[in-house]
């Protein structure tokens, strides 16, 4: 297949078909950008969000079709791969984009003077571009594509963090985000250049094969891998690359914070899983370096979960508290990455990947729900602080009761879906560990106990504190949306068993 005039060879049609979801959302981005030329100003913001939601939903369905079909399809001369892990995460990420567009319609589009409403087409173009980058991150099996995916996800995110141009906090958040991101990206690229020098290739599989045949990792390659970890760690806000996260979440609008808290971290964690499994879980890998890799990830997970939970205890701003909570949850998922597959077992069906996928799926709904309530309360009270939630149980029970469900699920208590996610993770850590990291279960349980305090502080404010403020008016649409998010947060527990078989 060739372009007629240029005589440029196009990639094979099968490769393009495997990446149909990315092509669909890219086309949506173009459509969203052109839409304002055909519409009056008053109608374009809502229609932009609707087109984004439809395009993203179509992409999620296309990725879902590939997931159901199964199999692994290496595409574009081994730069990307469409396998079950990448297809599932693309369903998750593109489906999440559709949900974010709906959430924006319900929360942000009601706000006057919100920059994302005034410049809705530009905002959604950035949002879609970042999502395409995340789709590439979860599919990349080549370090060049890892770098391009991370940058494509990051650059629009910097702009979205500072989208409220008139506000000082937005300007500050974007500044911190872009400076931190640029530094880690530069270090990552230097690390990638060192890995290229040592192994003579950027293909992750071929690097893994070289490592396995050498039986050891030379110091220069270790430095290269640490550089790569800086870039990926920045995306998942793993300690010590987490400093941007609370500031960006507090300074950016709630919808942007929601997007970054789920999509960016899910993509980064899946990418890290793929890289760690490729090197540490290579068939016939020498146990000693696999053990070092698992231990390194385990220590990273411990630091991330513990620091996130401890810092969240001191927060009065709900968005900032949820930012630290998202760091802590990234720490829990990192524990799943530490469960290396046993000899010769691929990513699909490995206990670590199963635990990661279930956790991310549950985390998506509970975080989206909690942030939606924060956005709706902010719309009515103008505050994101915990004082705004005082007496919410009486003032707006339709928001307070689902919020309590989301928070209980974030702790990981039964009968919420968060319990299934955490139980699956700790069970996998305890049972399947070929390299003993069972102490991570203790770390996880202690952290869950710590997290109980700050989540329950919000519940206590909502139901036990009283206030003179009158009831908060909640539209039927908003209440319906929050309750719709509460349904999977309770209902996923029922289909827990089939969900673990899914992957």
């Amino acid at each position, binding site marked *: 297949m060739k372009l007629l005039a240029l005589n440029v060879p196009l990639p094979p049609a099968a490769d393009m078909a495997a990446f149909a979801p990315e092509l669909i959302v890219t086309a949506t981005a173009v459509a969203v950008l052109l839409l304002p030329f055909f519409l009056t100003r008053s109608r374009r913001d809502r229609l932009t969000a609707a087109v984004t939601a439809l395009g993203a939903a179509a992409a999620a369905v296309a990725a879902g079709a590939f997931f159901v079909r199964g199999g692994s399809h290496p595409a574009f001369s081994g730069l990307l791969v469409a396998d079950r892990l990448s297809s599932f995460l693309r369903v998750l990420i593109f489906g999440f984009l559709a949900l974010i567009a709906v959430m924006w319609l319900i929360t942000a589009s009601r706000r006057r003077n919100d920059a994302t409403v005034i410049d809705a087409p530009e905002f959604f173009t950035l949002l879609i571009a970042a999502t395409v980058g995340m789709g590439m991150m979860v599919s990349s099996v080549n370090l060049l594509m890892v*770098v391009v995916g991370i*940058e494509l996800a990051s*650059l629009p995110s*910097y702009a979205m963090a500072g989208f409220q141009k008139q506000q000082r906090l937005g*300007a500050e958040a974007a500044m911190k985000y872009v400076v931190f991101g640029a530094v880690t*990206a530069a270090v990552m690229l230097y690390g990638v*250049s*060192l890995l*290229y020098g040592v192994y003579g290739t950027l293909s992750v599989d071929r690097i893994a094969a070289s490592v396995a045949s050498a039986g050891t990792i030379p110091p220069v390659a270790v430095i290269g891998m640490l550089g790569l970890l800086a870039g990926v760690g920045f995306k998942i806000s793993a300690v010590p690359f987490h400093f941007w996260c609370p500031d960006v979440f*507090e300074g950016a609008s709630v919808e942007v914070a929601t997007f970054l808290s789920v999509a960016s971290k899910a993509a980064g964690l899946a990418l890290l899983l793929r890289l760690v499994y490729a090197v540490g879980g290579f068939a016939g890998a020498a146990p000693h370096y696999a053990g070092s890799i698992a231990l390194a990830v385990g220590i990273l997970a411990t630091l991330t979960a513990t620091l996130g939970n401890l810092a969240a205890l001191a927060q009065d701003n709900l968005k900032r508290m949820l930012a630290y909570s998202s760091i802590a949850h990234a720490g829990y998922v990192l524990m799943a990455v530490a469960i290396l597959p046993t000899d010769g077992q691929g990513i699909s069906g490995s206990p670590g990947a199963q635990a990661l996928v279930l956790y991310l799926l549950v985390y998506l709904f509970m975080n989206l729900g909690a942030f939606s309530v924060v956005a709706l309360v902010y719309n009515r009270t103008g505050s994101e602080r915990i004082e705004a939630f005082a007496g919410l149980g009486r003032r707006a029970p339709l928001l307070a009761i689902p919020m309590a469900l989301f928070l209980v699920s974030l702790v990981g208590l039964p009968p919420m879906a968060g319990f299934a996610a955490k139980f699956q993770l700790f069970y996998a850590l305890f049972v399947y560990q070929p390299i003993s990291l069972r102490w991570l279960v203790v770390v996880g349980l202690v952290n869950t106990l710590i997290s109980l305090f700050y989540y329950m502080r919000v519940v206590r404010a909502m139901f036990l504190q009283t206030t003179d403020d009158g009831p908060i008016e909640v539209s039927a649409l908003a209440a319906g949306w929050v309750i719709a998010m509460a349904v999977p947060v309770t209902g996923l527990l029922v289909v827990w068993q089939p969900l673990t078989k899914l992957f």
Partner: protein
Amino acid sequence: MNHVLHIGLNHYLVLAAILFAAGLCTMTLKRNAIGILIGVELVLNAANVNLIAFSHYGTGLIDGQVTAIFVIVLAAAEAAVALAIFLNFYNRLATVDVDRGDRLRG
């Protein structure tokens, strides 16, 4: 004498390491956002020198050089976004000193 005059892989790697060290110092010591961005560019170019040198002396394939071109494009895109954000920060605070962004903390 001959091995000093004959420029080989090691010369490029030392150049890249010096560039990386200079860039890392600039990134960590400068408080001016533009200065940090200059440090980032130094580190990115250190990576480019590495990639091209390894590609020429090591593999003999073109993939390292192609990667370097990608890095140049990424650096340009990143600088464009970063400078726009710095300009907006300057419009709000009349400075590009990163330490002045102290409203968000805790």
